[in-house]
């Protein structure tokens, strides 16, 4: 950390403090929370891109899987649904896995040619038909149970913080499969493939209602911190608030946000500690070598494929963790809210603007870009307000401009990305 970086972070902190004064402390704290989550997502992408040069744009999928993990871990199980079709779903999933294993074995064992194609086809078709035959009735039974509030299998009813761990596991597991299949592709193809796979993950989340209610959303996820409303009626808390000279509402809102911020900051600190330590160790040296020159690294005995898979999984796990934290903060899972623009490309902007290959850069990028993502709209509205102040009230152009204000946000992101790429291609905090 040199002086320049300290100053950059100080400016960022000052911006947030300024928001606290000019808008409200509560807004600032809310932003800090989202900034922390964004920073972790950016670290996840940085592990894949900055460490290993993997152009994976499937971030959204892993973030969404993290969200799914929260539901699967922390929601109470729906016993009704389990007895209606739980076994059927598990059976169908087992059939699905068996089919894939059989297909892979056939691919490996049967010599290439028509025989292999035939065997594969038979295995896949039979497996698929069996899978659907077992799954469909079970799913219908599950989704038929009290659809308005349940209609899914529920979770395991474990503490919500545990879901942050399962989120990493889930994302890592899926990343292992994706990585096995697609890491051999060259960069642009890998990008499109991961972009598509992320969309497929979202489609599963949206349409497999038995899993997490699909687009019906899961509301009321348990919280790791107290509820504001409970605090507002808690005499001890109220006396604290009074002592601090804050209103009950404001104090409770700030307190809850501070609790979250503390949790998130701890997670971020752990990840940073692990990342920095790894990056400065022989492991990091090896990864930099692989990123610099794959052929040469191979010739020097490094197993590039295995290492790529390793960082891909690590990055995915970190993104999954961030996704779980996000859903925990929101208190609900809305699969419809996962959009590539917001959960993949915006995160990439964070990494590039911050400085790829540099952990501190990613953190700064996460903070700064989230800050702008939220603040550009009011600034844009204000600017357009200034611009149009002299226009007559009923001017069509004025109305058009005001309606367009919200779109300034995307344009700003684009302009920032282009400027950084052009004039500071290594980002605000370059890799040393």
């Amino acid at each position, binding site marked *: 950390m040199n002086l320049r970086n300290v100053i950059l972070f100080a400016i960022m902190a000052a911006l947030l403090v300024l928001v606290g004064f000019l808008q409200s402390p509560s807004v600032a704290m809310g932003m800090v929370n989202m900034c922390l989550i964004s920073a972790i997502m950016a670290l996840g992408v940085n592990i894949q891109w900055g460490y290993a040069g993997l152009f994976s744009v499937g971030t959204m999928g892993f973030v969404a899987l993290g969200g799914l993990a929260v539901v699967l871990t922390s929601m109470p199980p729906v016993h009704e649904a389990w007895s209606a079709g739980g076994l059927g779903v598990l059976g169908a999933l087992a059939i699905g896995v068996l089919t894939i294993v059989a297909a892979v074995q056939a691919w490996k064992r049967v010599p290439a040619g028509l025989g292999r194609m035939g065997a594969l086809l038979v295995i896949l078709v039979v497996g698929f038909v069996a899978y659907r035959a077992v799954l469909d009735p079970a799913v219908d039974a599950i989704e038929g149970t009290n659809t308005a509030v349940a209609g899914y299998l529920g979770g395991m009813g474990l503490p919500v913080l545990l879901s942050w761990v399962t989120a990493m596991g889930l994302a890592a597991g899926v990343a292992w499969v994706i990585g096995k299949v697609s890491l051999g592709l060259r960069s642009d193809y890998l990008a499109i493939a991961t972009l598509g796979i992320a969309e497929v993950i979202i489609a599963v989340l949206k349409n497999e209602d038995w899993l997490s209610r699909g687009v019906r959303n899961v509301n009321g996820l348990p919280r790791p911190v107290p509820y504001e409303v409970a605090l507002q009626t808690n005499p001890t808390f109220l006396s604290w608030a009074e002592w601090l000279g804050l209103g009950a509402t404001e104090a409770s809102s700030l307190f809850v946000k501070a609790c979250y911020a503390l949790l998130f900051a701890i997670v971020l600190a752990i990840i940073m500690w692990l990342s920095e330590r790894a990056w400065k*160790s022989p492991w990091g040296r*090896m990864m930099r070598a692989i990123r610099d020159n794959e052929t040469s690294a191979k010739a020097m005995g490094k197993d590039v494929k295995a290492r790529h898979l390793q960082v891909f999984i690590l990055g995915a796990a970190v993104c999954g963790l961030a996704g779980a934290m996000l859903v925990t903060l929101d208190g609900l899972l809305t699969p419809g809210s996962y959009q590539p623009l917001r959960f993949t490309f915006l995160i990439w902007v964070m990494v590039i603007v911050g400085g790829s290959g540099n952990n501190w850069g990613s953190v700064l990028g996460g903070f700064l870009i989230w800050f702008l993502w939220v603040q550009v709209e009011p600034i844009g509205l204000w600017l357009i307000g200034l611009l149009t102040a002299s226009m007559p009230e009923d001017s069509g152009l004025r109305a058009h401009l005001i309606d367009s204000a919200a779109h300034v946000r995307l344009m700003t992101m684009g302009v920032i990305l282009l400027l950084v790429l052009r004039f500071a291609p290594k980002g605000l905090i370059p890799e040393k």
Partner: protein
Amino acid sequence: MIRVENLHKHFGGFHAVDGASLHIAEGSITGLIGPNGAGKTTLFNVIAGVHKPTSGKVYMAGQDITGLEPHELFHKGLLRTFQIAHEFHSMTCRENLMMVPPRQAGEGLMSAWFQRRRVALEDEEIRRRANEVLEFLTISHIADEKAGNISGGQKKLLELGRTMMTDAKIVFLDEVGAGVNRTLLNTIADAIVRLNKEHGYTFVVIEHDMDFIGRICDPVICMAEGKVLAEGSLAEIKSNEQVIEAYLGTGLKNKVKAEGGHV
């Protein structure tokens, strides 16, 4: 040490290596010469696992190593350098050397995170070895330079240095002398000979500079059009009719091509 049997490598219709067979004796410094496009580099690439051969076999110490991955061959003691230097440009010269030793404890994430002391001790040892190598190659003064910023000849030295960071048995050097000034070339030649004598490395060297070949190599193998043409001492090769014709023929062709605008 290395036996190549009837090796073919085809790219589409182009037969880069077309039935080459050769044997490289343990402890030798074998020179591999031949006109441009003779298939020398492709042969290297196939032996070193970069390309899978179309047909044919490669044996190392009697063991079939055909089609193994480069990193697997590395662990068997087979190393190679590249025609165009493949340095790790964003790393310092010392780091370029330090990344080489295989099975470093610190390359495992768990050790990197939680066995700091063990990793540090091991790394200290590797650093010491890297410093020795730098000393040996007389490039200690650039140890902390980014490898992307050093001169072409220094990069070649660095590549040679990397092969010294592990217990190599056989090292393939692809055009070590290309674009290297006379002084550095001599340093490289000295280093190769010393490594051969003191550490028992076997070398296979592709090089166009006949003085260089003549100074360190015996025997010399000449390739042309994907086949092995002749083998023997440099003097023998130089007087071989077929070799002269192969060089002259393509030499003329090359001249014509160059005038036609080929780079």
